[in-house]
């Protein structure tokens, strides 16, 4: 479909196939290939112009940019072909540590952790500039027993976020709005599943697969959908935190049957998931939850690399509050990209600092899995839709 030869990643130089939209090595966006107009490669410009996200906000689907360049993060030595020339440390690939902050009130950090050799988690964010207004947030956790799961999860997250952000909600009333956002999350899961299926050989022994958690934020209305065991939490500044999702996992089934959470989640099959996105999944329809935001707080999406260490909503809330009190100080250059308007917000409302702190905290707990945290600061706008009282619907 394209005659462009020798295409390669502008960030890390890896060769790329003509149809690739992002680098399989580092995850950076690839420039759109010159196509013959075939309908199978939607260019960014194809996205509905009336979508409720500004072009600037769409920068949200960028990756962390070029690999942390020529300097070793451990000793400051020079990097040559991926390794430090002084201490031999492996230079982190951009794909192993991704940071995004499309607007001041939404941010995410995704990290390889300690024990895993690569980061198979991915996230994608699109948000509007006004604080607490509109956002599409997605986290996908690649299933590590299948091949190319890092590629699959990134493709899934990016496909899904575009679907959620596309189109206008128009003048839909409160009831209709929840249905509309829910339908969009459903469609996003479908798009993500298709993206997963397209990344690998579906007939292979272990076709690529990943989990899916997505949130569609429309001012103080949030619809969350989940397939697998990635989660969403609502952590209000005051009051009780809630887990917005139910895992598709053996542990969740046991809990449904009455087993205590701590016991179920530490069992031998605790991490076996019962649903996922991928050609071999039994069912890929997300389980939806609607949240009406009535006060300031944090919407948190994460992979099990974080919640493994603080599963209960109350534990997650106290971990987040501690993280806000004590922001991460490591890797400031990577974790704090310059963002327009970022300086206008007090530190305690900084989603990036908090997300980075949570990732550092999970790493310090052992980092047994990849860790991805998405945070959105909600309920800070005075012009809510004025319904409800904070109940989960």
């Amino acid at each position, binding site marked *: 479909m394209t005659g462009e030869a020798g295409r390669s990643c502008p960030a890390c130089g890896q060769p790329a196939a003509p149809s690739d939209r992002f680098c399989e090595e580092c995850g950076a966006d690839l420039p759109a290939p010159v196509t013959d107009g075939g309908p199978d490669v939607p260019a960014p410009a194809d996205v509905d112009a009336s979508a409720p996200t500004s072009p600037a906000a769409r920068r949200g689907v960028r990756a962390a940019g070029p690999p942390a360049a020529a300097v070793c993060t451990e000793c400051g*030595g020079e990097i040559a072909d991926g390794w430090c020339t*002084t201490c*031999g440390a*492996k230079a982190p690939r951009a794909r192993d540590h991704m940071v995004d902050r499309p607007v001041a009130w939404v941010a995410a950090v995704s990290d390889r952790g300690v*024990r895993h050799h690569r980061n198979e988690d991915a996230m994608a964010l699109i948000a509007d500039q006004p604080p607490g207004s509109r956002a599409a947030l997605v986290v996908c956790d690649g299933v590590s027993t299948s091949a190319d799961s890092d590629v699959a999860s990134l493709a899934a997250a990016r496909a899904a976020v575009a679907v959620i952000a596309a189109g206008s909600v128009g003048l839909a009333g409160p009831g209709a709005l929840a249905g509309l956002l829910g339908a969009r999350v459903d469609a996003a899961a479908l798009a993500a599943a298709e993206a997963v299926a397209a990344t690998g050989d579906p007939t292979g022994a272990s076709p690529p697969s990943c989990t899916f958690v997505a949130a569609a934020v429309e001012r103080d209305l949030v619809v969350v959908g989940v397939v697998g065991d990635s989660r969403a939490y609502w952590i209000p500044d005051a009051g009780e935190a809630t887990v917005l999702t139910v895992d598709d996992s053996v542990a969740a089934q046991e809990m449904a049957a009455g087993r205590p959470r701590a016991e179920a989640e530490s069992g031998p099959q605790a991490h076996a998931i019962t649903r996922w996105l991928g050609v071999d999944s039994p069912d890929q329809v997300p389980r939806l939850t609607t949240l009406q935001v009535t006060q300031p707080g944090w919407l948190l999406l994460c992979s099990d690399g974080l919640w493994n260490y603080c599963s209960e909503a109350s534990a997650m809330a106290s971990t987040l509050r501690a993280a806000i009190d004590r922001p991460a100080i490591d890797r400031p250059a990577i974790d704090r990209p310059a963002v327009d308007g970022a300086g206008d917000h007090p530190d305690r409302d900084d989603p990036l600092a908090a997300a980075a702190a949570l990732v550092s905290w999970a790493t310090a707990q052992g980092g047994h899995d990849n860790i991805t945290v998405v945070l959105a600061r909600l309920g800070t706008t005075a012009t809510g839709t004025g319904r409800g009282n904070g109940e989960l619907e």
Partner: protein
Amino acid sequence: MTDFSASVYQNEYLADGSTDVHAIVTVTCAGAGRAGQGESDAGEIVIVDVSASMGLEGVRAAQDAAAAALDQVIDGTWFALIAGNHVARLAYPFDGGPMGMARMTPQTRAQARSAIGYLAPDGGTAMGTWLELAAGVAQSVPSVTQAHAILLTDGKNQHESPAELDVRMQRAVGHVQVDCRGVGAAWEVGELRRIASTLLGTVDLIPRPDQMAAEFAALMAKAMSRGVAAADLRVWAPQGAQVLFVRQVAPAVEDLTPRRREVNPLTAAFPTGSWGDESRDYHVAVRLPLAKGVGQEQLAARVQLAIGEQVVAQGLVKALWSDDDSLTARINPEVAHYTGQTELAEAIQDGLAARAAGDDRTATAKLGRAAQLAAETGNAEATAKLRKVVDIDEAATGKVRLRAGVDKLDEMALDTASTKTTRVRK
């Protein structure tokens, strides 16, 4: 176009707390062309022992061998003939003037042949002087950057102390590569091995004088096929790491560690001499300064081949800490094989030395271990040569008996062949 490549064989998985990394790096050269093809020239030197012990018959065979060797030298190549006894004499060119070598032409070839005819047995043996002269001759022609010599002897180095030999040998390092051949049973394997090892050559036994010509022709043909004049193996290791050893393990075991020359604080160079179209295997062992956490990965060594300052091939040796025993417990087959072959060479040499010293108990133990290792690593040549020195009752357990009345030549053949390795059966 000369093309080098490097491949690394290792188990990069390290158990929690481990710091030692072992790897076999295979360096392969293709398209080397012929010696002296580039801007610089090749030089070939034939060194013939003409001490009295050679006798008329021995010298006559050596004359045939020298002539056969020179027949293989391509026209245009610089060459010289050295006659050695307790002193070294330049037998050809007759009147070198400032140049100690002549270019091979039909005319000089004929002159050299007649010079060979004048060689006659007389005097003692001082090989250091021969090597010193060979190095001087090689240096006398500035365009010669690849000088190679064949040294033939039949006896021990009697007219020179080991210290004198060392000093003279060191003067030749970097100027000439020397393949050593011993004829008969009166020379010392250890002595020639030391010379060959220092001067990046090989050592072997020529049992009978009538076999010399063929051996010399083959050696010279091989030297002429080495189109790459000189290359270094470079090993980079991380700051604080210790390079435990760098060892060539195929085609023969050769410890390169003592040849170490610093390139920069983290990189050492080990000269490997000239290269033809061939493959050599190196065993590199590095001790990292600290064990990283499980899941962490780091580079343990860069193993490169460099021609001058230019790196032409590179292999990366990695370390990856894991808590999965099934990954960390596995010994890489190449590393295991060559570790066995190296131990085999040591066991044979130690066993023969013990036997010579009359320590039959040690000799039996060492040669028994050698028989066991030769069987384990599938080294049929070593097994065959061992059988001439010991009766192998049970190879698997290393049970052997020393044979009585062993032919000295068989012992020497076992000794010289001890460092030759077999490659891993893939």
